């Protein structure tokens, strides 16, 4: 009986294997790993996966999503256990950490005479490491201020001018604060952008970080001062401070916070008030920072040719127009950027003007070695300075000593 069953099972397995082997010649299923922030977000990526199947009926793309934070926890683990998806999503800030697990695309670009010039050059740099291209970008975006237009109107504050200073910002935020409400939401993960915008630099010439430079410490004191002056709420060191501030923004408790063009899709569905966008305020010599994301091919993929076809589809002009119209991404393709302004950001005050200005006045997000560690240290230790438990200078020293130690 047992033997018989075993035989039957074996036969069945054999035929399935033979069967799937026969199918494999034509039909290929490839996987795609992507981060997502909401159901609306996931639906957009699924649409892109379906676009691949429409263009190449023999290729099926299965989408695997995780939240932003979890994505970066899972990615190296999956790579180490050889279970990486065929298509890997990558953010420009993290390319230097992860390019080893991806396939250089230069040979494919040359072979197909793929037009690289349609993309914004700065984000093509962001998708490259060591002179090689590792991903085709879908979006680009400078960090900007999202604000509650209703609260601005009530306080009699107009659209902030392009290039407004940190002092202008502080004055506006102060006006918007009081009675349990806050003008601004300052999160620890935002700190590096804040330092760069205020004109300081935490990166030394050799690429290592230095958070103890006087300019950086001064920026940290200013940043902590936002909470001290009750312009921004104190935020505990939790797993996702960004969620905390976005929740307060949506409920009308916080009037401004820092985000990027990729969040319009989520914010437009969440907030009940009129949304506005302004560029980041800058100090003397300060600049806003920009980053972007794209899709590459896993070095260990068994279906690299199909993955190459797929990433061309999901970064095609049609795909990027779709992403733009849905407010998910400000396209990395210059020709398609208009769709974001005209459709997604149509009802958002100051969106076009601020974004156009910000793109012309920003530089790539400066990152050091082991940036992941540095980001984790920010989330864990900056709340000490923000809550006023210790001087900002001391927090900077702690972060510096732990960042260089690990």
């Amino acid at each position: 009986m047992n033997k018989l069953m075993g035989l039957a099972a074996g036969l069945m397995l054999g035929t399935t294997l033979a069967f799937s082997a026969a199918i494999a010649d034509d039909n290929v299923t490839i996987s795609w790993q992507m981060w997502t922030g909401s159901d609306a977000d996931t639906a957009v990526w699924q649409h892109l996966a379906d676009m691949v199947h429409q263009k190449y009926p023999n290729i099926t793309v299965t989408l695997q999503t995780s939240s932003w934070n979890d994505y970066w926890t899972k990615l190296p683990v999956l790579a180490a256990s050889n279970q990486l998806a065929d298509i890997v999503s990558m953010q420009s800030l993290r390319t230097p950490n992860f390019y080893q697990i991806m396939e250089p695309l230069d040979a494919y670009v040359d072979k197909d005479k793929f037009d690289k010039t349609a993309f914004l050059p700065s984000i093509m740099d962001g998708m490259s490491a060591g002179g090689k291209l590792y991903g085709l970008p879908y979006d680009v975006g400078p960090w900007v201020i999202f604000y509650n237009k209703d609260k601005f109107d009530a306080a009699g504050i107009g659209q902030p001018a392009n290039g407004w200073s940190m002092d202008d910002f502080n004055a506006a935020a102060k006006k918007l604060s009081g009675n349990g409400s806050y003008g601004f939401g300052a999160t620890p993960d935002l700190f590096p952008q804040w330092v760069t915008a205020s004109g300081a630099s935490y990166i030394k010439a050799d690429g290592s970080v230095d958070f103890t430079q006087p300019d950086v410490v001064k920026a940290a004191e200013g940043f902590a001062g936002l909470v001290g002056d009750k312009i921004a709420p104190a935020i505990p060191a939790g797993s996702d401070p960004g969620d905390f501030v976005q929740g307060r923004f949506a409920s009308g408790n916080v009037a401004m916070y820092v985000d990027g063009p990729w969040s319009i899709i989520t914010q437009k569905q969440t907030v009940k008030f009129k949304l506005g966008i302004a560029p980041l305020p800058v100090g003397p010599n300060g600049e806003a920072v920009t980053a972007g994301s794209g899709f590459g091919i896993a070095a260990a993929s068994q279906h690299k040719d199909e993955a190459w076809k797929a990433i061309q589809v999901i970064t095609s002009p049609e795909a990027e127009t779709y992403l733009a119209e849905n407010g998910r991404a400000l396209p990395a393709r210059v020709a398609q950027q208009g769709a974001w302004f005209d459709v997604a950001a149509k009802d958002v005050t100051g969106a076009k003007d601020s974004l156009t200005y910000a793109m012309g006045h920003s530089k790539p997000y400066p990152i050091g070695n082991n940036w992941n560690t540095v980001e984790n240290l920010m989330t864990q230790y900056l709340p000490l300075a923000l809550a006023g438990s210790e001087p900002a200078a001391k927090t900077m020293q702690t972060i510096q000593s732990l960042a260089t130690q690990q």
Partner: protein
Amino acid sequence: MATTTIPIAETTARASRRRSMSREQTRAAFLFLLPSLLGFLAFMLFPLIASFLLGFTNWQLIAPPKFVAFDNYIRLFTADPTFYRILFNTLAYTVEYLVLNIIISLGLAVWISSVKRGQRWYRLIFFLPTFTPMIAVSVVWVLIFSPDGLLDYVLSGLPFHTPNLLLSPDLAMQAVVIVSLWAGVGYNMVLFNAALDLVPKTYLEAAKIDGATAWQRFWRIRLPLISPTIFFGTVMTAITALQVFDNIYTMTHGGPGVATATLGFQIYQYGFGNYLMGYASALCWVMFIMIMGLTGLQFWLQKKWVSYDV
């Protein structure tokens, strides 16, 4: 049992039958145990050995590991500025949580066993948090504890200033302890309550007749009789407390600063947050040996206070 007049041949035959019988039984027992044995090998022993070996490498996930001998351990004990603080946090949390948990759950158990009506309902109510997922519990408590949250609102009615639990590096661990207690007391309570119910009524009645007060009956009769259960509860609670992770991950992420970073959280942070798997593995083994040592100590100490003669 058997009579004394059985011929030798028959005895040996019977013995060998018994032997083969037992061999057969052993095989059956082995087959029945196989699933959990395989589980143990795959999910316990193999990772244990793997992490031991990885502790001597600098594995960072995306590059192949390189052998570094004792570097991780040397760095841990001599160079890492947070290690001893993390060790202290873990022990402080364990002691505080363990003592409070045993006192509260024992108190609740005694109280419930004296309740005349609706014992079952009280047991259920206090046991509910035990089968509620810790992550969900922590998320709700974070909302209560968060700055300008419910607790701050309630405490703002007090005449004196109260610092926010999650923002203060001195009090953040207390927030974690409160949530752990809320979630963890029910399990021991049910355990102790069941043990108290098993204490023979006759003992208590006899003591009562002899003039023992309620206090004496508790300390001299009930407590010694349930001491094996208390011992079990203490050991298990201590082990889970030393491994605490999920509520710290959700509530404080080890912060502010290093105020609530425990061994369990720091292993995750090093391994999956900073991608330092080799270093995290070394820390794992420090935790493993520490828990083993402390559990051994508890077993040694039980001779002094646990009585098994009922």
